[in-house]
Each structure stands twice: as structure tokens, then as C-alpha cells.
């Protein structure tokens, strides 16, 4: 690659290139790559410098499949509930292509959208200590660092909250992985080599997101 970037440009490019990757090749993630990913994670900001994060690296196929079952089961339940109440149909009302709508509904209600972690070469289970002030924020910062380093390394990853969001599933995960009571199972980050290039997902216009001095007064004025 002959392109050169300033540090700021390179940082922004990594951020912009990050995707949620759910399909992986069978190629392993090297120990050197994993070391850099975990080093990035533990450099995240932390309230009171409590560093409440702990990470469980899961590579074994049997355990990956069990985690995939918990994740897929949880997603399947929640998305089916959204489907039977017609909220999913409302959410996808802009998708006109009937075949694509059906495929999207199937992917969500079946739980496939999260069960893929069974096939990821590496799953990083992020846990957070409860007895600190800022565990959700600290661990989320660590997760973003993981995702950015994964991208910088040319790998792919997906942040999967499905096996942890419902307390019933979190209990299953904690039992499966032996996570002690004083820690929460926060999320799983599935990592591997992506099978294809993913398009960027749309973002809201920045004019709608940023205000000046107080809520509601746009910072960025509409372009004439």
C-alpha cells in the first residue's frame, strides 16, 4: 500500500472502516494479533482508573457453539416478540423488496443474527466488575478499542450483546464460563478474518446531532 496518512488521518480511517462482521473464514487469529487487541482493550479510559474489565478468550469449538446457542436463543426470542407485535414490520417499512424483508425477518427471528459467534475463530467475552462506579462505560470503551484494533489489523469483529442483555441469558453465560457473582457478563466480541468487504452503514446527518450552546440550536448550519 503506497498511501500515507498522518496519525489523525489514519485514526479516522480506522474508525470509519470498522464494520460489524458476522461471517468469518476458518483462518485463525494469531497470538500476536490477539496480544495487540487486548493491549488496546486495557488502555481504555476508566473512571477512578478502576479497570473493571476482565476478558475470557474462547476458541474451543464446543464452548463457542454453546455461546452461540445462548446468543441465538436470546435474539430469536426478542426479535420474534418484536415480529408478533408488528413492531418489526414498522421498523422495516422502508424496505420495499418483499424477498429482502422476508430474509431480514427470518435472520432476526431465527436468532441467526447472533448465533454466528459459534463459527468465529475467537470470541472475547468481556466481563465487568460490579463494585465500581462506571463498569458499563469503562467496558464499552474497552470494547471500542478492541474493535478499532481489530480493524487496524485487517480483521473483522462484531460486538454481540445478545447473550448478555437478558438477565436469564446472562445467567446462562455466567454458569457456562464460571464468571463469579461479583462480575457481570457484558458482551461478546467475535473476531476473525472476514469473508467479504462490507459496505458502511448509513449514519444520521451530523447537522441533526450537534448543537451549539444549548439543545436544539444546530451547530452545523444546513448547506445552501
Amino acid at each position, binding site marked *: 500500500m503506497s498511501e500515507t496518512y498522518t496519525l489523525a488521518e489514519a485514526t479516522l480511517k480506522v474508525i470509519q472502516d470498522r464494520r460489524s462482521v458476522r461471517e468469518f473464514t476458518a483462518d485463525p487469529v494469531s497470538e500476536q494479533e490477539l496480544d495487540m487487541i487486548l493491549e488496546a482493550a486495557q488502555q481504555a479510559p476508566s473512571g477512578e482508573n478502576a479497570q473493571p474489565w476482565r476478558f475470557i478468550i474462547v476458541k474451543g469449538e464446543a464452548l463457542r457453539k454453546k455461546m452461540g*446457542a445462548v446468543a441465538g436463543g436470546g435474539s*430469536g*426470542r426478542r426479535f*420474534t416478540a418484536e415480529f*408478533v*407485535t408488528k413492531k418489526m414490520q414498522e421498523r422495516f417499512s422502508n424496505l420495499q423488496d418483499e424477498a429482502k424483508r422476508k430474509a431480514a425477518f427470518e435472520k432476526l427471528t431465527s436468532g441467526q443474527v447472533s448465533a454466528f459467534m459459534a463459527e468465529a475463530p475467537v470470541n472475547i467475552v468481556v466481563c465487568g466488575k460490579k463494585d465500581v462506579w462506571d463498569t458499563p462505560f469503562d467496558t464499552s470503551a474497552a470494547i471500542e478499542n478492541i474493535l478499532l484494533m481489530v480493524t487496524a489489523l485487517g480483521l473483522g469483529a462484531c460486538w454481540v450483546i445478545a447473550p448478555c442483555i437478558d*438477565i436469564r441469558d446472562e445467567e*446462562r453465560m455466567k454458569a457456562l464460563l464460571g464468571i463469579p457473582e461479583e462480575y457481570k457478563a457484558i458482551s461478546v466480541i467475535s473476531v476473525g478474518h472476514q469473508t467479504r468487504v462490507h459496505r458502511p452503514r448509513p449514519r444520521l446527518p451530523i447537522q441533526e446531532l450537534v448543537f451549539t450552546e444549548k439543545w436544539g440550536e444546530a451547530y452545523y448550519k444546513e448547506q445552501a
Partner: protein
Amino acid sequence: MNTKLIPLDYVNNLVYELEKAFWDERGRGARFRMTTVGREFYTEKVVPLLHSPDLEEILKTVRDVLQNEGIVGSVVYEQEDRLLRIRVEGCLHRKVEEKMAAHGIEPWTCVPANLIVLAIEEKLARPVELAEIKVAEDGCHLLLVIFDHHPSLA
């Protein structure tokens, strides 16, 4: 021991404030963190009476406990394939849902629903999801989805 009963309004206002604080913190994700609330009551009052692995019997047992303990006035079930529609009338916690709705928040957690979910999941090993809570004149209308089986962990 002080045997004076705690005023219901006091309890419901506290429950509302706790739920509202949790909603303010966690938004729509809050509902998934409350799915086991009522477990102690379930373990103490419902489990000893759950003898049959039959769905109708399980539902009847939970309804009887809820009525006998004075938590609700009546519970009516209607099953349609995997959907279970429940109308709960005269619930002690109705005021909590009304206050939530008055603040523009859709009701998102229900202890009677949790007890039903816990009982079905435990006795039948079938996953259940609370899909909807609608507060109406004639009671709370709950919609549950009952799935065939848990995904295999084998």
C-alpha cells in the same frame, strides 16, 4: 414485630420510582434486565404447588397463587398456537403502569407475567418472551410467545 401493613400507595410509588430510575438509565433495554423479578415469590409460593408438566395446569397454578395471595383479582388466558394472551384484572401494581403511561413510557415489566414465564420455562423447558403489555380499562393485556424448545447447548 411490627405487624402494621405497609400502605399500598407507598409501595407502588416506590416501585414506580425504582422502575422510572431504571428506565432513565437503561431505556428500552431495561425490560430485559427485569425478567426474573418476582423469582423469590415464585420460589416460595408457586414452586411448591407446581406438580404437573401440563401447560394448562401450570397456568392455573400461577393464577391461583396470584389470586389467593391477593396480588390480582382475576387472570384470563387465551392460547393461540405459540401466542399466549393474558388479561390481568385488579392487579395490585396497576397504579405503577398508569403512572408510567402518564409519563409517556410504555409499560415494560410485569411481575405476574414474570411468574408465568418462570413457571413455563422451568416446568416445560420452553423459552418464553413477554412481547407486549397494554394497559386497558378492563385490565392489563399481556402477550407472551412460547417457543418449542431452548436452543441446544449440547
